[in-house]
């Protein structure tokens, strides 16, 4: 096994996630893309951890944190989408311009 096969896979997944993030209209699908990107990051972390073999498995611990935060993010994200949907009858991101002042 070489390191790069994992890292390149992760890069591929990440770029797919970026693509999804940019093209998806539906907010839920945007969130899905974000999850994909996070998964890619996790692969990176674990792979590098395997390379360096730190005593405390630092990379894996970071990955645990990321998974946790991702869960929180999904929760909040979905809640927001729900709220917007309720108010606007749509969950399409490009119809949202609330952030503009």
């Amino acid at each position, binding site marked *: 096994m070489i390191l790069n096969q994992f890292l390149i896979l992760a890069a591929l997944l990440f770029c797919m996630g970026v693509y999804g*993030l940019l093209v998806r209209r539906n907010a839920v699908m945007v969130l899905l893309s974000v999850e994909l990107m996070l998964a890619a990051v996790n692969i990176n972390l674990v792979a590098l951890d395997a390379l360096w073999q730190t005593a405390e498995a630092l990379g894996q611990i970071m990955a645990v944190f990321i998974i946790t935060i991702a869960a929180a993010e999904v929760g909040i994200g979905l809640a927001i989408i729900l709220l917007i949907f309720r108010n606007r009858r749509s969950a399409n991101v490009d119809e949202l*311009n*609330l*952030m*503009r002042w």
Partner: protein
Amino acid sequence: MGVSASPHLAAESAAAVATTGGIFSEWAGLMLIGPILAFLVIVLFGKRMRHQGAEVAIGAMAFNLVWSSALLLLNMGDSGVLYERSLEIASVGGGLVFELGWIVDGLSIMMYWVVAAVGLAVFIYAHGYMKGEVRVTFFFAALSLFAGSMLVLVGSPNLVQLIIGWEGVGLASYLLIGHHWELKENSSAAMKAFYTNKVADVGLVIGVIIIGITLGSFHFWDLASAAAEHSAALGPVAVAAGLLLFFGAMGKSAQFPLHIWLPDAMAGPTPVSALMHAATMVTAGIYLMARTFPLYQELATAARPWMIAAGTVTLFGMGLLALVADDIKRVLAYSTVSQLGYMMTAVAAGGYTAGLFHLFTHAFFKALLFLGAGSVIHAVHSNNMSDMGGLRRHMPDTYRTFVMGALALAGVFPLSGFWSKDEILATLGYEGYTVVMWIAVAGAFVTAFYMARAVALTFFGEFRGHGEPHESPPIMTRPLWALAVPAVLAGVVNIPGLKLPWIGNFTSWLSVRSVPMGDHHAEAIDLGLAAAGLAAAVAGLWLGWVAFGPPAADRTDRDRVEVPVLYPLLRQKYYLDHAALGLVWVIRQPAARAVNWVNDYVIDGVVNGVGALCQRLAGLLYGGVDQHGIDGVVHGLSWGTSGMGGMIRRIQSGRVQQYAGLLVAGLLLLAVVVLFVL
């Protein structure tokens, strides 16, 4: 003319023993603080007082009169008072120190006393004059500030404090001239006074800066000794500094062509005019020239011809303007300007004592004349002499005192004005300015002429106004008599060659100085010159009486001698007001507008343009990349044309994905730059 054989500095040998003046000098600062304190007290509590604060103002002035009289007495005779005290208020680095304090010497004692004496008379008079007027409280507060600032000015031991008092006087004059600010012309007159002075102050401030930096000190006494020693440092800049200080003095002392504010300043209540013309404002410039006299005498000699020129033009040209004015206060105002020209010419020519002596006598008779005019105005409710006439019978006290003042001003023997004017003429002759001297004699003729005209039109003939004029109440007439006494007698203190027992003379009062300075004063009367001056005065009076006295006084077309070019020129005041207004207009309109336009369209144009450009670039980039979207084209077009709001909306579209896309793209760009370019 008794020409003193002694060289310039010999006058100093006569200087008497100097004392410190004891407690009166050590606490002389109270005189400076008193009126300022009165100002604060009146502003804060005046409304609740019985006389609306007038009692505080008058009380402070009375106190000052007592105190300064004590100093004056101490300074009389053979012993002079010399004292200085400074309190540091800041050290600013470079060895420079700002100080406040007071100075007690012959010159400042004379000024303290004049301000206090004239001030007290005017304050008491004003208490009667202003009865029933609006904002009496504030009026007395401002009067106190006026007097207080003047005292700060004349008591100043250094140039910085002088500036403080100087502009304080300007502020107070602004407040008082514009007392009836409901009318735009009054507030404009106030503005004009303040503003003209502010222009002149530029000269003063720069002059002070030059002296302060060059000497490393703002003290007058350091300046005087540097000048006396012909300091090498001060030498090269002395003329510039001198001329700049003189420019400042031109504003306050209304020298041509910065005199334009003074006649307009008549918009203020009459007591203000009296105070301003006699004691507290216009004398400041003369005082400054006297205080910095050694500079001009020793170093800035090249500046003196210019000063004399300005003074001469003022003394003659402004006197002519008084010939055609109808407003009695304006007649007096122009006469003041002209008399200031005398003083300035005298001081510039080296007649330190002569100029100050004229200041001294002028303070009394001019205050008297103004208060008299105020009394008349009070009675007939008009400023115009065409509404007066025949008041001799209705207002005997006013009439008598006014005539005394007019004769004194005209320079009739043996009233005070005769002696002081004669001394000026003698000095000019002695210093070799013969032409100027004869112009001054001609000026005396003009002075007498317009005073005769004013007296004739006001007090003789038939009454032309409305209603029944009455003599003013005693509270107003008593100050008139009080001022009439020195107006008549003040000349006694400086009759050439005469030194009174106990009192000494004016020259000896002023002779105590820390630094000797050249100054000429006559030792005996030059009979020929005195006769010439007197002849000019009498001729003027006679001609004025012939032209304007009864029965001619009753004619409506008084100014029937309308010399073709001269008359319109005088009526339009040499068109100087037009020139000044034109200058202000240029600043206010084209210049200010141009700057504003530049600001909004050029500088902001660049700013907004960059904004629009960024937005357009963003539009192009995005539109170019995004070939499928209709949005791109539509919005791209609209970005190009919409305004700043559009730009903001574009960048802040609120579309998260657009942000993300730009973010990633930007990141990429950055990475490429970092990796491959750097």
